């Protein structure tokens, strides 16, 4: 049935390539460049503006660019397994370590990035929390890494669709054959036909916490679990979905709630509770504030719970011993927040930063679904239960490149694939129906429903969890799915419709949230980015294994598997 004139979205057009890359950060651009360099025709599709979306503009620090003895592959390997608390997929870690020692991160300098230097011209290297060696380097500017990679995309004249949201992966005879997306500027649906599809749009941090303008998250607005949800719907296996990385972030003022406050280790910073105690003595007396992100976050949450929190539910972070360089390495909103970091203590809280879980992949970034690849934050397994500092952008470089390369190799030896046009029509219909909700007399606004899911995931499945809260979260998510049917968009134009975008995002957040909560409910222990109040100890006997989620017969199936060695 063809829609009434007013609500009709534009008829879709078709774009064909060998490799489709979904995302717009460091991973996506590296994947696109690597695929192009294999000789493939590549198309890069980003929900936001390329280089200005997702995690790219805040990805300033990277580890493993340059390592010297006594650092070695073995030492790095050990650090990652220790931080991941034994759950890391060893084959992925091995591939990662090999690639960084071959210079996969450092080659960004060939593309023009200039990492911070000491007075003598040597690279400034920092030792971040959880690392046993100084191997972190930083750019001067938060967006440098993604910017140089966007330049490389331009050098190769790779076709880019900015502000085009992929809403569904397309399947044909069991293979992924591309995707369909909404070009936000025009409201046009575009079918991307491709022999290989790479998911790089990882993360789901915006699904946590009902902030005044967005989630309690260090990331940008676009990070809504899209890759996980879309992969899940086509039968991909996802792993480690229960592990969320929380990082210290501003707790106040409201606008900056969730904005990165930085690793204490990077700023020589100290943490205090409302009684003025350096409470890390209780949680990690040896490393204190140089502890890993998971332990820092859990410590603050426990201090708050014990009634020793600050007015806005966090801890005090004291930057007074920080170097000038470290305070300027990231656009911390001190000035805007009216804070003098030299004098005032900053109120910090854990905020959603990174998601360890994701699509289960091989070293070649293949998922279990033919034609579908995933890398970096969109994939799971490399970091185990907790990611080491700087390893996200290093992961983007290593596995971004790998995913592009292997997706291209596979695409170039694959014949042109078919397409099931019915799926594209159904997806267009789904979006058109969302637009038509404007005809209803009453209903819930997307922004209100979004805050509801953010509230549920933060309160019941966030930094603190137990069986009761997780069971409640799953129940509430089911109710919110019902409520999704009551959505009413006030904006009925297909052209740059933020409400339509939110409605699509919410569906992804719901699927992500349920996967995360189901996995978290099953794992009855505390480990890394998964803190269970009712099981506050690590249980190696029962839980030195990964949880896998897959859709089967329209049901969410949760199972366990041994760690890949």
């Amino acid at each position, binding site marked *: 049935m063809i829609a009434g004139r007013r609500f009709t979205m534009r008829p879709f057009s078709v774009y064909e390539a060998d490799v489709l890359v979904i995302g717009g950060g460091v991973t996506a651009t590296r994947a696109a460049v690597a695929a192009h360099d294999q000789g493939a025709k590549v198309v890069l599709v980003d929900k*936001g*503006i*390329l280089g*200005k*979306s997702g995690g790219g*503009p*805040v990805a300033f620090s990277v580890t493993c*660019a*340059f390592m010297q003895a006594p650092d070695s592959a073995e030492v790095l390997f050990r650090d990652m397994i220790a931080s991941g608390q034994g759950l890391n997929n060893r084959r992925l870690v091995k591939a990662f370590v090999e690639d960084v020692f071959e210079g996969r991160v*450092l*080659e960004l*300098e*060939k593309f*023009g990035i*200039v*990492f911070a*230097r*000491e007075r*003598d*011209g040597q690279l400034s290297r920092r030792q971040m929390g959880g690392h046993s060696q100084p191997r972190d380097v930083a750019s*001067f*500017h*938060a*967006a*440098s890494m993604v910017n*140089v990679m966007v*330049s*490389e995309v*331009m*050098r190769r*004249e790779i076709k*880019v669709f*900015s*502000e085009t949201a992929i809403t569904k992966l397309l399947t044909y005879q069991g293979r992924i054959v591309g995707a369909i997306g909404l070009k936000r*500027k025009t*409201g046009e649906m575009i079918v991307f036909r491709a022999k290989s599809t790479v998911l790089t749009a990882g993360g789901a941090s915006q699904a946590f916490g009902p902030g005044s*303008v*967005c989630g309690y998250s260090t990331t*940008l*607005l*676009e990070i809504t679990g899209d890759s996980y949800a879309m992969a899940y719907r086509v039968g991909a296996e996802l792993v480690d979905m229960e592990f969320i990385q929380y990082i210290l972030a501003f707790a106040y*003022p409201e*606008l*900056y709630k969730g*904005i990165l406050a930085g690793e204490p280790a990077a700023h020589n910073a100290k943490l205090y509770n409302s009684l003025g105690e350096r409470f890390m003595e209780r949680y990690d007396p040896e490393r204190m504030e140089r502890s890993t992100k998971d332990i820092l976050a859990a410590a603050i949450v426990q201090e708050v719970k014990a009634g020793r929190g600050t007015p806005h539910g966090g801890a005090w972070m004291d930057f007074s011993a920080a170097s000038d360089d470290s305070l300027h390495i990231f*656009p911390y*909103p001190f000035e*805007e927040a*009216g804070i003098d970091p030299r004098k005032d203590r900053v109120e910090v809280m854990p905020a959603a930063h990174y998601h360890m879980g994701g699509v289960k992949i091989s070293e070649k970034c293949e998922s279990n679904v033919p034609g579908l690849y995933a890398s970096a934050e969109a994939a799971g397994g490399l970091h185990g239960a907790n990611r080491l500092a700087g390893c996200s952008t290093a992961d983007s470089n290593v596995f971004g490149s790998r995913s592009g390369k292997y997706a291209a190799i596979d695409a170039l030896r694959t014949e042109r694939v078919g397409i099931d046009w019915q799926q594209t029509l159904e997806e267009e219909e789904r979006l058109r129906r969302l637009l038509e909700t404007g005809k209803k007399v009453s209903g819930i*606004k997307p*922004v209100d429903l979004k805050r509801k899911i953010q509230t549920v995931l933060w309160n019941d499945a966030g930094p603190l969890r137990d069986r009761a809260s997780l069971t409640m979260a799953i129940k509430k998510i089911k109710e919110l799915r019902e409520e999704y049917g009551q959505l009413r*968009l*006030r*904006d009925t*134009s*297909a*052209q*740059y*419709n*933020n409400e339509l975008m939110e409605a699509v995002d919410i569906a992804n957040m719901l699927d992500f949230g349920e996967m995360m909560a189901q996995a978290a409910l099953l794992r009855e222990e505390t480990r890394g980015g998964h803190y269970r109040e009712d099981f506050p100890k690590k249980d190696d006997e029962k839980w030195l294994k990964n949880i896998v989620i897959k859709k089967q017969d329209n049901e969410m199936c949760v199972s366990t598997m041994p760690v890949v060695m």
Partner: protein
Amino acid sequence: MNEISEVSVFRYNPGTDESPRYEKYQVPFSQGMTVLEVLKYIYDNFSPIAFRFGCRIKACGSCTVMMNKRPVMACKAKAEEVMTIEPISVLPFVRDLIVDFDAFFDKRAKIRPFIDPPKAKIDLPRQLDYEVVSRYRECEICVECLICDAACPVVERSPHLFAGPCTMLELARLYRDPQDQGDRLRLAQSEGLSECDLCGKCTKMCPAGIKIHEVIKELQQLAFGQAHSG
């Protein structure tokens, strides 16, 4: 004690509206509130205006709008008690406060914003003097918010002659990278380097604090010699 901010927002959807209009909203106003928070309040409570933001901390450069005829980053600029919010005019208009960044990338691609690599293989990490790095850093911290272009009287007067301060800054960045072998001065000339009269409005408005007109002045001196007076 909450006051009210009288906000007038430019509204136009070329697909459905006959003509542009300004819609007025009354938003609870507190000292220190940003333009972004005002826009989000309107979006949440009154009307689904089309606007854009990303990071909240001036890192992505996607929320630039005109506030009372001044280009500002919505996430940084403090709201005023009487405000008119309009889209910036240096990129093609899409809807309400949304402009088309595709045009920005088309313009960028023209100046080949990637390293023109030297023939000889370089050893990594690169050997770089601290001075070289500092000079590079000055240009690199740009987030492409386009406030400088929107504030530039030359761009406003003759956009066909001058590509704008943001483009010049990018060319200066490449020029200052010792690895780059491209003829950036010549490119700058063909993008209208000589049109800039160094009025300094770009520098005054730059949220990253870059002394853009001084960077341009240096490019002019390098390209035309000391005699050039703009």
